[in-house]
């Protein structure tokens, strides 16, 4: 640490001029507060973190309060009388349907709102599946080492031998056409990422000083893992989880675009909306544009936040 930490010279004497000109650094040094406080502080200064956070906040709120926000139910088709073979009303054309209608007569605004809920659920569940599955595998592999480690890593390699979307597609296809299948499929494709991450993180921690000293003090292996190694490995996992959420939202949309995930054609899911929107591009492009924008912006929000988090936790930029 710099000499800003030293008490000022008692009288006269040379004063250290490497004054901390950065208010924030000064706050960090005087208030301290540890790793997480520091991360949060740096996050607050990052504009993309704010943008990402706001986007995610809106997305989550819309998803949670969908039943109250959406004018119509998820599978209602209130505007059927306005649909003719050559014409589907766009945004602002028909009163009561601010964003227009889709080809089945459903209200676009409602569909988008309910779609947010579907995407949120699928995104969170599949990321959790990947996270928990990956963490368990990584934990076991790193803790036991030896042939257990090799076996688990071979399995992870197998999962990685197929590109992730393909893997998710094949699992979902083989499991049947339900939303649960999609969640497990996408989650399974994320497992190897988390497994490798946690294992690498744990192996790195294991050779660090505080673990060695804990072992010297006589703490058992399990205790060391649980209360020392794991909490420190959590950081990168959180970053990856946020980024995986972005991937999950996009892949879920992709899978439902392909028709996996069941439901009827008018199901309110952003990817599914795009499947049928393709057919009506010449008639009304908004049916395709609006859900696509929703998917992109939501994924963007998670990506921005995840990357800001990664930057905030990066030790190279922290220890200045």
């Amino acid at each position: 640490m710099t000499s800003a930490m030293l008490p000022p010279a008692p009288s006269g004497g040379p004063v250290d001029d490497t004054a901390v000109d950065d208010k924030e650094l000064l706050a960090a040094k005087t208030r301290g507060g540890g790793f997480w406080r520091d991360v949060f502080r740096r996050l607050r200064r990052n504009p993309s973190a704010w943008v990402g956070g706001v986007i995610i906040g809106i997305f989550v709120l819309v998803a949670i309060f969908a039943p109250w926000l959406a004018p119509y139910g998820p599978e209602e088709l209130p505007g059927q009388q306005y649909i003719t073979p050559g014409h589907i009303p766009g945004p602002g054309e028909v009163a009561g349907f601010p964003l227009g209608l889709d080809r089945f007569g459903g209200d676009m605004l409602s569909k988008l709102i309910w779609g947010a809920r579907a995407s949120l659920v699928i995104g969170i569940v599949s990321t959790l599946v990947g996270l928990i599955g990956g963490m368990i595998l990584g934990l076991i592999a790193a803790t036991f080492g030896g042939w257990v480690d090799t076996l688990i890593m071979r399995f992870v390699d197998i999962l990685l031998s197929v590109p992730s979307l393909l893997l998710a597609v094949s699992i979902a296809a083989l499991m049947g056409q339900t939303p649960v299948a999609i969640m497990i499929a996408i989650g399974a494709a994320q497992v190897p990422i988390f497994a490798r991450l946690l294992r690498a993180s744990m192996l790195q921690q294991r050779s660090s000083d505080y673990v060695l000293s804990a072992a010297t003090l006589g703490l058992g292996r399990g205790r060391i893992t649980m209360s020392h190694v794991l909490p420190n490995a959590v950081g990168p996992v959180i970053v990856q989880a946020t980024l995986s959420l972005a991937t999950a939202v996009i892949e879920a949309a992709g899978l439902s675009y392909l028709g996996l995930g069941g439901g009827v054609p008018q199901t309110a899911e952003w990817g599914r909306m795009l499947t049928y929107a393709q057919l009506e591009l010449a008639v009304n492009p908004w049916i395709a544009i609006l859900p696509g924008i929703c998917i992109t912006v939501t994924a963007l929000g998670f990506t921005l936040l995840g990357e800001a988090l990664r930057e905030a936790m990066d030790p190279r930029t922290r220890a200045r």
Partner: protein
Amino acid sequence: MLRTIGRRLLLLVPTLFGLTLLLFFWVRALPGGPAVALLGERATPERVAEINELYGFNEPLIAQYFTWLGQLLQGNFGVSIQTQRPVTEEFLRRFPATLELTMFAIVLAVGVGITIGYWAARRQGKPADHFAVFASLIGITIPVFFLGVILKWVFAVQLGWLPSDGRQDPRLDATHYTNFYVFDGIITGEWDAAWDAFLHLILPGIALATIPLAIITRITRASVLEVQNSDYVRTGMAKGISRGTIRGRFILRNSLLPVVTTIGLQFGLLLSGAILTESVFAYPGIGSFLSRAIFTRDYPVLQGFILFIAVIYAIINLAVDVSYSFIDPRVRVQ
């Protein structure tokens, strides 16, 4: 060197082996058994029994697995339920299409991506850089199929500049020797066919290339930033080495290392993106066939194609790893 390649290839074997195990048990684990899965709604008890006999589903699992594995090793990947043609044949028929598209996309992604990444890094902090960063962020998060739909709408439906579907205008009676349409057109001298095939590649190629392009841009930019601020570059400039040499041999060459590594990964992205892109543009490659196989529960196709793709993906990654040791002399010394 050769030992490393050999070792990697050897490692590939148990991985693929494990993959076959996984695929095999997946299909068998489906509710109702594989026969029901194969037949779908047409599953009557008699038909189920028939299928069980025909495909040997009544044998003990281990026996089934080894029979299947034996068939695989002989090159027999089964017959597509949908088209009644061998899976291998279906794959070989359509693979050139996807390969052509993928190569177009990779050339686009690498060429444009490295250029923009380098360009942005040299203008760090300026508006051009910010724009490039933002654009690449959008490029990463935009779903491939959405981009494809938008491109199709703008350029094919609205402007009519480019064709919207397929590989070639059916009215052109083009000869196809290699099934690589552009190449075919060139070697047979049918320039209109080659040009037409090229036009058909553009939209799906752009859609497919976007994500890898964005990723390559970001990595190039980050890499160039790191290199251009490093000591040896500064030393070179202090010694008076010409700007061109610094840019070419010092900065560019050394910053390309991380980029090369990701190209292998991008290939995987391209192969999987192909499923979605080919669906949007009705492009007759392995992607669209695979997505149809999903709908029709064509398991032999699903299993076979996934295995093929896994092998290709693994070989590409191996090739990239090997090339890495050619480019980076530090790796060679190990």
